[in-house]
């Protein structure tokens, strides 16, 4: 049966094959245990680093694979997510942490911080969220006050993916209270800098293999050369970061949904009730048919957005919000249906689909809730049509 032709390059096919192998050989045997024990996949990430995959999104001049291709990276995330998004988020969050440096960093900052990330020797994390600031980035309370050749940071970040595990953090803090979102700046903070501590590790509904921690800054001293771009550019950097990170979350949705579809189809073939495999029932076939169509549509949209970004297009906020919104809603829907296909067995932890359903929920929440995605898309439409109607 023909598969969708997405015109992938040789490298992209190679990436798909190698990550699929890795996911099946290395991740599948441990995913239930990582979930059960809420254990960070340290060894798996190290191996992904050795396989050059941590450098997929980093240019060759900073020791990355130089592909500068969104799609290369997204394919890797998708294949990992097919088996476990707790692992794939730990992998992808490195890019989220590194993106502000890639987008707004000086050459010196890039030379210092990107090569160890590209080689997988160090990991990164992005720190925006606070108890009172998530979707509303203007509500950030962490402060950075300039003192001589240092900024002094004070405040608390919460729910930081890879918190405690990462070495390099891109942290948003207010440098000018009066200017609201325009008074936010972005800093590179290293693990071990004086006054930088980690708080509690969160217990979560899903993606339990990933580490989610508090970052605590108590008179944390950050050298002024670790300011990214200029003072006040933090919010813009964050938004540009989301433009290129949201397709990664979409890829998690596509992979997770595909994984759930795989499980559902295989189970439905084996499970015999009333003397025949349950897949022989039209009611179930229609469910699977809908799931398969949703997955392929989500993939097509996600790849299309990646290609647009790879072509060098500017202002991709609407498109990247669209693929994040659609693919993650699909993931929630398809994983829920997969549990239904499994019936009572689907509800049991012995089978993989209940974890998939628990995991899926976060995709509709992080990197901007799907309500925020609709806001982004809606606002873009307002601008787009205001411009054309004149």
């Amino acid at each position, binding site marked *: 049966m023909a598969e969708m032709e997405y015109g992938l390059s*040789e*490298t992209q096919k190679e*990436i798909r094959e*190698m990550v699929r192998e*890795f996911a099946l050989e290395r991740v599948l045997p441990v995913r239930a245990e990582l979930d059960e024990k809420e254990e960070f996949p340290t060894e798996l990430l190290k*191996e992904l680093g050795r*396989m*050059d995959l941590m450098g*997929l999104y980093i240019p060759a001049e900073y020791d990355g694979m130089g592909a500068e291709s969104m799609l290369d990276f997204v394919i890797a995330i998708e294949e990992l997510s097919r088996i476990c998004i707790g692992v794939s988020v730990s992998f992808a969050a490195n890019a989220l942490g590194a993106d502000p440096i890639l987008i707004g960093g000086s050459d010196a900052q890039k030379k210092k911080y990107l090569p160890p990330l590209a080689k997988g020797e160090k990991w990164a994390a992005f720190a925006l969220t606070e108890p009172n600031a998530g979707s509303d980035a203007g509500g950030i309370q962490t402060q950075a006050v300039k003192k001589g050749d240092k900024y002094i940071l004070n405040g608390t970040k919460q729910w930081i993916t890879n918190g405690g595990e990462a070495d390099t953090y891109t942290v948003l803090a207010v440098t000018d209270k009066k200017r609201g979102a325009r008074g936010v700046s972005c800093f590179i903070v290293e693990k071990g800098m004086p006054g930088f501590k980690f708080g509690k590790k969160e217990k979560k509904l899903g993606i339990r293999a990933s580490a989610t921690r508090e970052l605590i800054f108590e008179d944390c001293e950050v050298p002024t050369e670790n300011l990214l771009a200029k003072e006040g550019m933090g919010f813009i950097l964050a938004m540009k970061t989301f433009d290129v990170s949201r397709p990664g979350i979409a890829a998690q949705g596509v992979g997770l949904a595909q994984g759930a579809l795989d499980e559902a189809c295989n189970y439905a073939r084996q499970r015999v009730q009333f003397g025949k495999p349950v897949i022989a029932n039209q009611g179930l076939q229609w469910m699977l048919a809908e799931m398969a169509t949703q997955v392929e549509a989500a993939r097509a949209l996600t790849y299309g957005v990646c290609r647009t970004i790879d072509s060098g297009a500017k202002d991709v906020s609407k498109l990247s919000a669209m693929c994040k919104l659609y693919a993650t809603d699909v993931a929630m829907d398809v994983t829920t249906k997969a549990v239904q296909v499994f019936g009572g067995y689907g509800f049991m932890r012995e089978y993989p689909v209940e974890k998939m359903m628990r995991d899926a929920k976060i995709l509709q929440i992080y990197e901007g809730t799907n309500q925020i995605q609709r806001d982004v898309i809606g606002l873009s439409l307002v601008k787009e049509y205001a411009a054309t109607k004149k």
Partner: protein
Amino acid sequence: MHIVVCVKQVPGTTKVQINPETNTLIRDGVEAIINPFDENALEAALVLKDTIGAKVTVICMGPPQAESALRETMARGADDVVLLCDRAFAGSDTWATSYALAQGVRALDKVDLVFCGKQAIDGDTAQVGPGVAEFLGWPVITYARKIEIKDQVVRVERVFEDGYEVIEAHLPAVLTTVKEMNVPRMASLKGRMRAKKAAIKLLDAAAAKADVNEIGLKGSPTRVVKIFTPPRKTSGVKVDGSEPLVAARELVAHLRNQKVI
């Protein structure tokens, strides 16, 4: 340091079929993989490359299709790969294979260490590693699970079912590796891209200076007369030994019944 790893391509399934007429494995339509123990051998060599620095050459005797196994080893980090390939090698038993591989090793630049997997999962003889060492006239240490190299001496933990012994040998030497030695790495993206394009060095019997009377069917003293799946053993009789006198009587009765005594 120059390390050579010998690998074999084997059928990647436990459900192998045997051709009843030729008594050989049916390889058509069966996915071929690198013999798993040879993957441990390769990993051991690559670890040495990473830690003390070495050139790693992988050698494989087999048909042209074995190229895929060699490319996989290159993707994982082997510097050079050599395919010992010649119709004259076909039908070699473990003796002729050991000879051919030893000739292959001789044809390479000065070699310090040869790694083989402890055995191949298709033939399960575990003879080729020691055989290669014999033809080369080098010491061999089988079932290595841990190695250390210092001043041209290799120190090896040689593992048994119930323990291990520590043995040293002067280089050059041949080692065969067990599964618990390491976890084979997965190939890197750069490695895979490089391996795709790399040229595979071919070594035929003449280039390996192999005596045609010592290789292939002609050079193989072993003849496989018959291959069959042994019938399942029925479970035996267990004699309770808590009362020695009773147990002994019962045992003797059984043996008499079976006309053993």
